[in-house]
């Protein structure tokens, strides 16, 4: 059995332990499990409804900018700067899109892996970036939507700084560990 199957079956069991274990413990502690479930589930529904306006705003803004070619343009402008700094410019489109759209980032990673080969330095660096950063704007929209927050103060700054360090460290660490 390879690791992928192993990890998939491990997370399946973890999932089932949650799904089965929580109601069982609740029942043993004399909770009306189904009633409690329904009350909580209703709350889940209400949170999603509260998020929708935030999600529409962010997804439309990012979708428009992507369709216009904005990310490619910025990558094009920045690439000499990053090249001078020793950051592979081929990875720039990925690093720029990553905080805005997880799906788009996945697409670019797949493209890099297919163009340069799955075992290339660039593919490994991009994959490491994928794992060490997050779709910051999606998280911001959804999380602050759930709390009905309009003024996010420094949350975006902290999130983007974390992404920036993740991106830089991905290249640095890949340099340390990668062997062709």
């Amino acid at each position, binding site marked *: 059995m390879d690791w992928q199957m192993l990890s998939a079956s491990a997370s399946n069991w973890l999932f089932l332990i949650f799904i089965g274990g929580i109601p069982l413990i609740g029942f043993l502690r004399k909770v009306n499990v189904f009633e409690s479930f329904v009350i*909580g589930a209703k709350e889940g529904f209400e949170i999603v409804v509260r998020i929708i306006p935030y999600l529409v705003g962010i997804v439309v803004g990012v979708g428009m900018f992507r369709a216009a070619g904005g990310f490619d343009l910025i990558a094009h402008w920045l690439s000499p700067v990053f090249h001078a700094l020793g950051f592979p410019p081929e990875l720039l489109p990925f690093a720029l899109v990553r905080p805005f759209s997880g799906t788009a980032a996945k697409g670019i990673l797949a493209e890099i892996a297919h163009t340069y080969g799955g075992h290339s330095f660039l593919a490994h660096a991009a994959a*490491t970036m994928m794992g060490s950063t997050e779709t910051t704007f999606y998280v911001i929209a959804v999380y602050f939507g759930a709390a009905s927050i309009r003024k*996010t103060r420094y949350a975006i700054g902290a999130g983007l700084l974390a*992404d920036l360090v993740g991106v830089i460290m*991905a290249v640095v660490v890949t340099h340390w560990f990668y062997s062709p």
Partner: protein
Amino acid sequence: MLNIIWLGLVLGSIIIGAINGTIPAVVNAVTDSAASAVVLALGLIGIMALWLGLMRIAEDAGLIRGLSKLISPVLRFLFPQIPRDHPVFGAMTLNISANVLGLANAATPFGLKAMEELSKLNKTPGTASDSMCMFVAINTGSVQLIPATAIAILASAGDPSPTSIIIPVLIATACATTTGILSAKWFSKMPFFKIKPEHQVRETK
């Protein structure tokens, strides 16, 4: 911040679209994106209802309170404003553990539940509290033991050893998350980000 970025995205795409000749694509993107945002939200409803239902059972069984008691000494230094043993620590712990284990489906519901609890503690409705910013910063750091998506993409491109990125990802993600936490702590002390009193008056009215 979000105001400026959002305005920049919208106006920027119109200007760039006009220069690049991609206006038709931009126009299509508006309606397509609006529709896909709702599809995204609809997809969330089922999984949110399921996990928050389970979480409610765990709450009523006293499990969340127990977990909060257990974990609050650890998380307290990150969230000094939250009262001791508050149940929000339970939701946060579940969110962080689900993230670490790569259970993205469960992480979001727990995270949103935690944000809702934090908003009950927030004295300035509409404006993010320090605890909220810290919690979001931790979430954007994305600590993950096994970066399953990235590994799958490498494997599908013919990489014989895609799992060799696990250790590099752990190191990079630890640096990113530490940066998120430290910068949130640091920003929270900057006068520029102090919540101004007029916010409080206007928002709570």
